[in-house]
């Protein structure tokens, strides 16, 4: 049966039939028709057309080329004119293709193409079909309809001249998405589209829609695959770069998983271990080094493994010194070993030099000091005595600098010695206040002691060194003069000595660094301050040795409060 010629009685002349009115019953009829025809062993026209169209649609993922063929197929079996509109990825409706069967109709094509702009909000036509997803079906065409379709007089004239007999517009549908629309037009006299034709066209629309969707998906997948390939290549490149970096690094590097198995070792790590990669990879640390457990560095690894916080330390191994940095890495740890033997040697030489130099400096200082004292006893005029007193002050300053340097060098090699005796803080601090007070005419030292019996255990001279340092700093850093408050007291189980000045204060950033060796606050509001930057470092070491603390509170421009905290001697 030729469905193209099939017409229903009573349907002719109907301007437009609402799809909803017949869709259920007609779809069933259409399916039954196709099914019964197929069961007779003969393929129906609709099946033949749709099979060919499906084969074409499946033949390529380049759906635009395929569509040209589908249009040609439609012109052969279903329409005299056929036009395809597609929805672009940006959501615009774009005219894609127009085709016509009879050569004599070519003259109409330019006018039709000129009037192919689509209004998506239109109440009928392509825009409406795409917007609503509902087909439009015009079994027969009257002038009123042509006037409605036409965009201009010229357009109307062309449509009229084409002698259109029937027209239908179906959506290109993929699941719930509308990807475009196809217009089928008949200009064959007496030929009007039937409902079966409409259902066949809709079927084509669905198949074509799925083909477009598949092509889109394939295209998207291709882009994603390419992106993934590029990303994978980049990842490979960076991994290789990373491995190259680790391999050529001047630091030994290795990683260990949570089971303590080596997962990676760079060239230098293997060299230090004196092993081949295959002797270590995937083996537990103690399988490779049976005595590793209990070593201080292993304890540090363990600390990072459980705390998941990085640790840095220095370790003497074999004949050299190493800076070791341990970080949590994945579920295990990674470890860097940097050879710092040269630096250590240099530091040692520097400390030795400081030690020798300061010792050598003390000898002439002793001579100068003694001769100055001798001369002091010989001269009796006031002016000379005054000058000699200044000389003595400067000699004492010089001596203090040299002593600090000597202390520093001994601290570095851990040779600074401390006595342990009971020390009355009240007496010690008072003595220092009395000694320091005459050194500045601009300052007034206010001494407050709430707990006169405060006793601590330690080296009296060294503890005095800390208090002296805090007090001389307070004077130095309050150049405008004023009060300096020294307090001695108790807090819980600790003894407290605090020194408060109202001078230049310390910036917050500097507060963390002032206890570092050779650190000096560069300047404050144009003031520069003399010194080597080791006094607070030495004081901090002394505090640490006495299991005490040295803390600072300060505000720039307001002054500083240094608190020296020491454990009290336990009384029975």
């Amino acid at each position, binding site marked *: 049966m030729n469905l193209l010629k099939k017409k229903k009685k009573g349907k002719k002349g109907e301007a437009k039939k609402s799809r909803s009115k017949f869709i259920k019953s007609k779809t069933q009829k259409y399916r039954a028709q196709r099914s019964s025809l197929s069961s007779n062993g003969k393929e129906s026209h609709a099946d033949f057309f749709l099979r060919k169209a499906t084969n074409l649609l499946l033949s390529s993922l380049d759906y635009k080329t395929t569509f040209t063929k589908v249009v040609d197929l439609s012109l052969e079996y279903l329409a005299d004119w056929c036009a395809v509109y597609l929805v672009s990825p940006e959501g615009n409706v774009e005219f894609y293709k127009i085709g016509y069967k009879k050569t004599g109709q070519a003259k109409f094509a330019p006018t039709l193409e000129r009037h192919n702009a689509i209004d998506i909000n239109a109440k009928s036509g392509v825009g409406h079909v795409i917007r609503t997803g509902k087909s439009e079906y015009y079994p027969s065409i009257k002038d009123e309809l042509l006037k409605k379709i036409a965009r201009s007089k010229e357009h109307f004239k062309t449509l009229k001249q084409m002698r259109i007999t029937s027209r239908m517009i179906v959506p290109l549908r993929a699941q719930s998405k509308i990807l475009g629309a196809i217009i089928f037009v008949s200009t064959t006299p007496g030929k009007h589209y039937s409902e079966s034709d409409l259902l066949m066209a809709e079927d084509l629309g669905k198949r074509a829609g799925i083909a477009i969707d598949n092509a889109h998906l394939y295209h998207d997948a291709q882009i994603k695959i390419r992106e993934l390939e590029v990303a994978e290549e980049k990842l490979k490149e960076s991994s290789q770069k990373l491995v190259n970096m680790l391999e050529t690094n001047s630091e030994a590097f290795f990683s260990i998983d949570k089971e303590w198995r080596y997962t990676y070792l760079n060239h230098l790590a293997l060299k230090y271990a004196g092993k081949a990669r295959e002797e270590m990879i995937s083996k537990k640390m103690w399988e490779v080094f049976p005595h590793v457990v209990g070593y201080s560095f292993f304890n540090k690894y363990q600390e990072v493994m459980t705390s998941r916080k990085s640790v840095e330390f220095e370790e003497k191994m074999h004949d050299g010194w190493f800076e070791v940095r341990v970080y949590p890495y994945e579920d295990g740890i990674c470890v860097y070993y940097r050879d710092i033997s040269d630096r250590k040697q240099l530091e040692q030489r520097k400390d030795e030099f400081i030690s020798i130099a300061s010792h050598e400096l003390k000898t002439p200082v002793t001579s100068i*000091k003694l001769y100055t*004292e001798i001369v002091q006893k010989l001269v009796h005029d006031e002016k000379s005595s005054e000058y000699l007193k200044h000389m003595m002050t400067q000699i004492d300053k010089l001596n203090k600098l040299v002593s600090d340097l000597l202390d520093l060098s001994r601290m570095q090699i851990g040779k600074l010695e401390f006595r342990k005796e009971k020390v009355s803080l009240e007496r010690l601090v008072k003595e220092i206040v009395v000694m320091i007070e005459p050194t500045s005419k601009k300052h007034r030292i206010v001494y407050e002691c709430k707990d006169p019996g405060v006793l601590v255990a330690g080296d009296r001279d060294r503890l005095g060194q800390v208090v002296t340092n805090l007090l001389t700093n307070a004077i130095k850093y309050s150049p405008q003069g004023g009060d300096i408050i020294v307090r001695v007291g108790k807090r819980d189980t600790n003894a407290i000595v605090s020194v408060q000045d109202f001078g230049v204060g310390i910036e917050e950033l500097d507060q963390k660094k002032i206890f570092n060796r050779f650190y000096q606050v560069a300047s404050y509001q144009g003031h520069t301050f003399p010194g080597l930057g080791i006094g607070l470092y030495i004081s901090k070491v002394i505090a640490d040795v006495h299991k005490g603390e040295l803390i600072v509170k300060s505000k720039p421009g307001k002054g500083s409060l240094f608190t020296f905290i020491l454990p009290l001697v336990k009384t029975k």
Partner: protein
Amino acid sequence: MPTQNSHIVIVDDDAGILEAVKIILEGEGYKVTASSDGEYIETLAKNPKKPDLILLDVLLSGKDGRELCAMLKKNEVTRHIPIIMFSAHPSASTTVKKAGADAFLAKPFNIGDLLSLVEKLLKK
């Protein structure tokens, strides 16, 4: 025993310090022998005239004052002589005590500290 006529020996390889200490001690009325090397100490056991006090530097040129101190303290005839050792290294106080020195004076010292220590040891 009167201390002002006492005989004090000072050994230091630095001529400046040696001279200054000599001036100071002589100024206080002591009889002073100054020696820039350890030779005087090394031969002291055989010397019939023993000093009342020795001031001895820790680091002498080519010699260790602590060894000389230990030698004197081991010898019957010299062990009674009080020895004050001095050094620019404050921590030497521990090692000089091990060597048997009676007191330690850290350089640079002042005249007052020196004299009070000398007097204290001479009175013992």
